[in-house]
């Protein structure tokens, strides 16, 4: 049998794919194993609210054997959802407009600038976003946007320092918007030109063509983009750890505009924040539980996203 026989090369290449699967399986097993004590000690109440999560984490950290695991992680769930959800909603609007602009309306000279710009924004390391956040944006917001009255209005509950939902969401939006733009642009560009030209030939203007045909046909891709961006937002750790406030807190919508200036702590940021204590058994297991939650949700999201995208491919053909 020759070296270039398919019977030899096919399985050899296929084993690379199998290796990928093994890695994922390993990851799921290890993270779950490490996280298990935290989940089994709390049951479903793990996701509920009650008590102060900051205090609970401190107790977990300090506990002597037999270890303490009690945690009500709702504020973390809520903080994650707020930051990621807010970023995805803002990102959806921004990315749709920007994608339309790139595909249909920008002069070629600006498209030539915008494409590297989008790629650059995707490529800027999160530590640089964090650096700008913590050294520029946080002091700015603290000095100019949060009045003393506003601080005093809530200071028995939480202190406002500039590290806030607002900055976290804004930076997160900038970080995920390139993914959404790239998917939206690809989708808009792959809308069959027979449709767009057909609409143009009927005398519709180009904006209407993009709305009634382009975006309509790209809806699955927009959903897929949002889903993938959401997965990315859930997992962003370094930047959020740097700007999101360092205290586990659930911003209260009833506080009006102050809501946006209240700190949050998403799961991923909490992991970075607590990383120094990872070897302390109950605390480490709690951090792994955070990771497990992120892992399960992002795996779920990316599978959803790929299913939607596969649908899209079928539909485009």
């Amino acid at each position, binding site marked *: 049998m020759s070296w270039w026989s398919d019977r030899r090369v096919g399985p050899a290449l296929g084993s690379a794919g199998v290796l990928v699967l093994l890695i994922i399986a390993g990851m799921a097993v290890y993270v779950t194993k490490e996280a298990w004590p935290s989940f089994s000690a709390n049951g479903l109440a793990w996701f509920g609210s009650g008590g102060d999560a900051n205090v609970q984490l401190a107790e977990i950290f300090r506990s002597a054997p037999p270890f303490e695991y009690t945690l009500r992680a709702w504020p973390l769930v809520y903080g994650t959802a707020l930051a990621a959800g807010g970023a995805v909603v803002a990102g959806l609007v921004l990315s749709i407009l920007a994608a339309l602009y790139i595909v249909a309306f920008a002069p*070629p000279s600006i498209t030539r600038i915008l494409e590297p710009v989008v790629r650059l924004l995707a490529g800027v390391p999160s530590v640089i976003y964090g650096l700008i956040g913590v050294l520029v944006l946080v002091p700015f917001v603290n000095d100019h946007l949060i009045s003393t009255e506003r601080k005093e209005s809530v200071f028995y509950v939480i202190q406002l320092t500039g590290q806030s939902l607002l900055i976290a969401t804004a930076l997160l939006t900038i970080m995920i918007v390139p993914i959404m733009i790239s998917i939206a642009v690809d989708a808009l560009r792959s809308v*069959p030109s*027979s*449709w767009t*030209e*057909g*609409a*143009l*030939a*009927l*005398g*519709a*203007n180009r904006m*209407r063509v993009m709305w*009634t*045909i382009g975006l*309509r*046909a790209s809806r699955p891709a927009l959903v897929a983009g949002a889903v993938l961006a959401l997965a990315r937002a859930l997992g962003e750790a370094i930047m959020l750890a740097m700007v999101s406030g360092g205290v586990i807190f659930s911003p209260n919508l009833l506080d009006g505009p102050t809501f946006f200036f209240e700190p949050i702590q998403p799961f991923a940021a909490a992991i970075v924040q607590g990383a120094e204590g990872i070897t302390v058994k109950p605390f480490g297991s709690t951090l792994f539980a955070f990771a497990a939650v992120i892992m399960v949700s992002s795996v779920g999201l990316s599978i959803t996203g790929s299913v939607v995208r596969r649908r899209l491919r079928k539909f485009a053909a």
Partner: protein
Amino acid sequence: MPPPPIRRIVVDAPHVPVAPPEPLEAAVRARPRLATDAVERMRVEDLTIAYGPKVAVNGVTLPVHQGEVLALIGPSGCGKTTLLRSLNRLVELTPGAGRGGKIVLDGDDVDVIEVTDLRRRVSMVFQQPNPFPMSIFDNVAYALREQGSKRVKRSELMAPVRSALERAGLWDEVGDDLDRPALRMSGGQQQRLCIARALAANPEVLLLDEPCSALDPRSTAIIEELILQLREELAVVIVTHNLQQAYRIGDRVAFMYLGELVEYGLAADVFERPEHTRTAEYVSGAFG
């Protein structure tokens, strides 16, 4: 067994007259000469279109008459589609496409007509049926809705949609369920839907780019008949690679080769008494 002798294509040979398609011969001979005073709807003057450095249409001058069907023929890549798409300025969508020369619609340069207006007046049907992924009704109503900026009620649109479907000979087949997705129709129906969609805006000129090439004989026959009916109300330009079709429905035929207009004239003249060798070769099937 020895192979049969080789039969060469004689390139650049003097032309030999071509017989018209047999089944139609009688009808063609009986056809009255076209009036020379037919109203000129559009006129292409010294038109040149280039995609970047590649010249696709080269100095073509051509009139389009009301009440006639103009058939554009020529081998693959000779610029038929490009010429057609320049008539409603669709060619401008291709990045890098440039235009020289002039196109006139009813005496106005097409460049000064608002482009969405122009495209409603000079409507186009494509080679592949391309209904939008919406209901039949929404497809036909598309041009009507996009005309104004306000939302129009469905009931108000019903009359024009019905009339367009009737003119396209589709009402009897689909009139009872206009909410069906257009993509569920058969190929021939889809193409007629596209014609109906183009007709809904009451165009003055109808452009058709190989509208039957993806269709079966029955659908082809229906659409050919439809085109002949429509020509009473508007000017029709049709691109086709089916020479018999050009002979059957074209009142005038333009033969293009390598971007240039080689021959233009009445259908019977071009097919039976072509002036140029290339035309004779092409209509006799030596290439293409």
